[in-house]
């Protein structure tokens, strides 16, 4: 390469190609991160494809869905994979988001780039754009592949749809959660301007955010309520439902807590039931048909948070010296 440079010193600026300007710089600076993330995405996808193939083989051999299959149909591979996908947004936030701008502050390269002929805002937009794009692509691919595995086999797989391992790893939730946490990591990095400090704070933030998200998850849709007689079997439609709450009720609709008549002896229980006139079970639940709407609502909330954090980051970094 040095010989061509000596021969044609101007060839460098005339080199054709798609990667120009800030795009080239950002990709060159973060090529290790890009390579790791691409490798992770490809390997994880292949792993899912392999596990799905194994599961399909097993189910075909057992004659599913005509016959029932003995549980469990999946082993540690499934659990490890869902755990990995569940950790991915936090890992991206801590290792990609937090150092994205703070590393350039710490090493002074923010000053280097923004004293060339590009403004601070353009540089930030390029960095954030790259970071969000690979987060979105990687998580969308993984979520799509995992959904493709989970959806046809949901009745035989161990987790129900409201479990974090399914709800957060399928559909739009995985990319939205990753984008939100990564944007939070970037914001924390811009505020703290130190790599290690911002990574630690981002980790703490991720734990807190995941906890809050766990509490918000079952409020993303209005629960449905079904009333059925006290001595009847649970209706079939509740088999895959997520229980929010349940009561017992008298004929006039008066609700009593589920344990209201849990007495020491069956006789005492019956006496209590008769005294209060309890005739019905009341069951409040989230139906699996609400899943898609809940996932998109949740993704919408997270994306709104991402937009707010990004706007704040751009505003803050443009008004503050680097």
């Amino acid at each position, binding site marked *: 390469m040095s010989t061509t440079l000596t021969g044609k*010193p101007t060839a460098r600026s005339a080199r054709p190609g798609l990667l120009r300007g*800030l795009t*080239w710089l950002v990709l060159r600076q973060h090529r290790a991160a890009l390579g790791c993330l691409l490798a992770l995405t490809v390997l994880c996808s292949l792993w899912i494809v392999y596990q799905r193939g194994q599961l399909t083989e097993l189910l075909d051999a057992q004659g599913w869905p005509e016959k029932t299959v003995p549980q469990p149909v999946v082993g540690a591979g499934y659990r490890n994979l869902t755990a990995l996908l569940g950790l991915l947004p936090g890992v991206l936030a801590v290792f990609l988001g937090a150092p994205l701008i703070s590393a350039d502050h710490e*090493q002074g390269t923010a*000053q280097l780039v923004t004293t060339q002929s590009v403004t601070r805002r353009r540089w930030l937009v390029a960095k954030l754009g790259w970071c969000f794009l690979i987060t979105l692509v990687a998580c969308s691919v993984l979520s799509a592949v995992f959904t493709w595995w989970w959806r046809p086999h949901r009745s035989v797989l161990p987790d129900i749809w409201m479990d974090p391992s399914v709800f957060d790893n399928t559909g739009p939730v995985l990319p939205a959660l990753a984008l939100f946490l990564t944007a939070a990591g970037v914001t924390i990095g811009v505020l703290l301007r130190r790599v290690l400090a911002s990574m630690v704070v981002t980790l703490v933030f991720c734990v807190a955010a995941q906890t809050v998200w766990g509490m918000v998850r079952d409020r993303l849709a209005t629960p449905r309520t079904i009333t059925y007689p006290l001595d009847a079997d649970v209706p079939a439609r509740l088999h895959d439902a997520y229980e929010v709450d349940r009561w017992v009720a008298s004929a006039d609709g008066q609700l009593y807590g589920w344990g209201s008549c849990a007495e020491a002896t069956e006789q005492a229980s019956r006496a209590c039931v008769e005294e209060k006139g309890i005739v019905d079970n009341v069951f409040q639940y989230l139906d699996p048909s609400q899943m898609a709407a809940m996932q998109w609502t949740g993704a919408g909330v997270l994306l709104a948070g991402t937009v707010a954090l990004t706007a704040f980051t751009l505003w803050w970094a443009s*008004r503050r*010296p680097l």
Partner: protein
Amino acid sequence: MAETNIAGEGPGPWAMEARGLGKRYRRGWALRDCSFRLPAGRICGLVGPNGAGKSTLLGTASRQLAPSEGELRVFGVPVDDPAVMPRFAYLGQDKPLFKRFTVAETLRMGGELNPGWDAGAAERIVRSGDVPMHAAVGTLSGGQRTRVAFALAFGKRPDLLLLDEPMSDLDPLARNEMSTLLMAEAVERGTTVVMSSHLLSELEDMCDYLLVLAGGRIRMAGDADALVPAHALVTGVTRDGGLPAALTRHTVIEKRVQGRQFQAMVRRDGPLSGDWQVSEPSLEEVLLAHLRSPDAPALFTPGAQPETEGARTT
């Protein structure tokens, strides 16, 4: 006391023009009420004690800091306009570079981010220092890294080069080499250079224009050739332990009385006559006197102060 203005040459094209420039941090003003002009094509030394506002001034000029008040123009373009960015290059104390980039990639970055990139010039500067093109920047010595940083700065083809003590961490040999390179490149292109430095002798050799800052304010601005002769070093015998009355008509920058002897650095306001000895000070002596006496009235040589500013009092 009023500022002294020396009559003489008129205005020209200005590389830098500040009017009432100020920058306030949380702990106070780092730069206050700075008004000066720097003609294009000069090598300007920026002098002042630590914390005088030199880095703040250079940071403002290189768009890393937004001024709190006033305005700064670079070749007539307000510094908050992005159009000013290709006109200047900045080299700071720590000369940050991407450590994992090779030298070739660092130069490519210059090409990718600057519209008027001169790849030939940048490569020539790197090669003349025998810096291997494919070495990672992190593995280079301090002198080699500074050379790469200089190549990046000159490859941008700036009209104004802002240097914030970029050679402070170099050994004397590398320092000399860089100074020579800087002067050769600047003279060849007619680049205006603003460099801050603590080495007064270095400034004396290289600079033909001076900006002296103290306490966030301009103390002196103008041609080095005109600033020095405006001062005189007066030695004589004191009668009452103070300066002779005839001398206090002039602006006294600094005085020292030792026994019956006095020595004073004065700014001439008319002919100096009396029973004392007058000698011409060196640039270093003038600068040191001003650095030791930050309360002395400001001095601007003609054109060094924006016209509309008029007569100001300090």
